[in-house]
């Protein structure tokens, strides 16, 4: 038995017997047949097996013999109700077609025209497949990382610093300018000029009122900030009231004014 043939044959135990070779009478126990079907990679693989096993010449395949052997397998598999891939049946049709074409009398040679051997395409495919099959075997024999050798991987302790993007004031400026540009294009987005410190105060006030309780109006103001600061804070309070973010209440005339966030859901 040739080396190539050995590799084709499943290394399996059937009823305790190693299945090394197809029995010549082609009797195969049904469960072995299933294994055989799994072992062959398809009709080309099965055909190659038959050709190599019976020392047939790939270049001059005796079609009758090969077709008959192939059909025996197919019938066996079908009789055992093994699910046969469509490719196997298609190949059977191809073989029978080639065989019948070879039986037909060849038309008399018209001039120099050569009549192509009906087997040529099959031969080409068988050889191409066999070439790749052998290549796959050799590829699999190459030492593989993780299977046949290990890669060196020495520990390195890194002080893990998650690199967060740096943002500069300029980045903010650019972002805002982009927004402005777009706002001009889409005229309905009004981007108003606004004194930023009012916004800052609004945020500060909301934070201060976060607890949800009433706060004395006067307490919202930072006296030390000077008059401009007081004005800005006052505008911020009005702005918050306008946006209904705060409630301002006074129970009696000239009484204390209280401010709280308007039914703010606190987190």
């Amino acid at each position, binding site marked *: 038995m040739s080396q190539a043939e050995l590799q084709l044959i499943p290394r399996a135990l059937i009823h305790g017997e190693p299945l090394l070779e197809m029995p010549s009478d082609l009797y195969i126990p049904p469960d072995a047949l299933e294994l055989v079907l799994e072992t062959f990679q398809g009709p080309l693989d099965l055909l190659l097996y038959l050709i190599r096993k019976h020392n047939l010449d790939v270049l001059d395949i005796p079609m009758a013999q090969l077709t008959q052997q192939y059909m025996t397998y197919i019938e066996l598999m079908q009789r055992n109700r093994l699910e046969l891939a469509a490719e196997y049946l298609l190949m059977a049709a191809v073989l029978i077609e080639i065989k019948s074409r070879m039986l037909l009398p060849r038309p008399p040679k018209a001039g120099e025209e050569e009549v192509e051997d009906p087997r040529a395409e099959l031969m080409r495919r068988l050889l191409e497949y066999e070439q790749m099959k052998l290549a796959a075997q050799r590829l699999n024999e190459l030492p593989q990382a993780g299977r046949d050798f*290990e*890669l*060196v*991987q*020495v*520990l*390195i*302790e*890194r*002080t893990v610093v998650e*690199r*967060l*993007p*740096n*943002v*500069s*004031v300029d*980045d*903010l*400026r*650019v*972002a*805002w*300018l*982009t*927004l*402005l*540009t*777009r*706002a*001009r*294009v*889409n005229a309905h*987005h009004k*981007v108003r*000029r*606004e004194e*930023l*410190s009012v*916004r*800052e105060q*609004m*945020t500060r006030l*909301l*934070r201060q*009122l*976060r607890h949800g309780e009433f706060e004395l109006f006067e307490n919202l103001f930072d006296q030390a900030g000077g008059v401009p600061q007081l004005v800005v804070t006052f505008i911020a309070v009005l702005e918050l009231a306008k*946006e*209904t*973010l705060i409630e301002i209440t006074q129970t009696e005339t000239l009484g204390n004014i209280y401010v709280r*966030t*308007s*039914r*703010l*859901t*606190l*987190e």
Partner: protein
Amino acid sequence: MSEQADSPLSENQLTEVIAEDAPVVDVAQILKIFEAALMTSAEPLSFSELKKLSDAPLETRFVEELLQQLADKYADSGIELNRVASGWRFRARPEMQEYIGRLDPQKPARYSRAVMETLAIIAYRQPVTRGDIEEIRGVVVSTQVLKTLESRAWVESIGTRDSPGKPALYATTQQLLDDLNLRSLSELPALAEMENLLEPNHQETN
């Protein structure tokens, strides 16, 4: 670096350590095996694991001597053999970190335009809801964008607006000012000035 050439324990010295009837240990070979195993293992190797690497039984004392020899071999190299709680392992010497760190493919990270624009809107228009941001940007603001800014502690929700759905109100934090090296929001570029930076649409920017 010359120790391993000049002063390994001789085979005689070492083989004495093991039981007399045990197979003779090929010290050079077992050192190579230890070296390869320690270099490729993801975890430190314990004495019992190291012993499995030898066909002949090894005593712990002998394994320890072999490891010491291996450690000496690497005394003057970029890596070192350490004993840790669960066994022995190689690691890069800490002073190598500085150089090896350069290989990190990490590029200076950048935030997406969506993140930067959202941050700008929150900074200049705070307190704002997601709806406000979406109105200004003209597109939906993804949760991811806000999460990015919140996880950086640059913005936070400071309450909710009393309108349907109780949308959260976002504002910037002290952290943002610190990171931008500003004392107050008023030090941000003034919007009015910025508008002047923009050429009116119809004008040519020669």
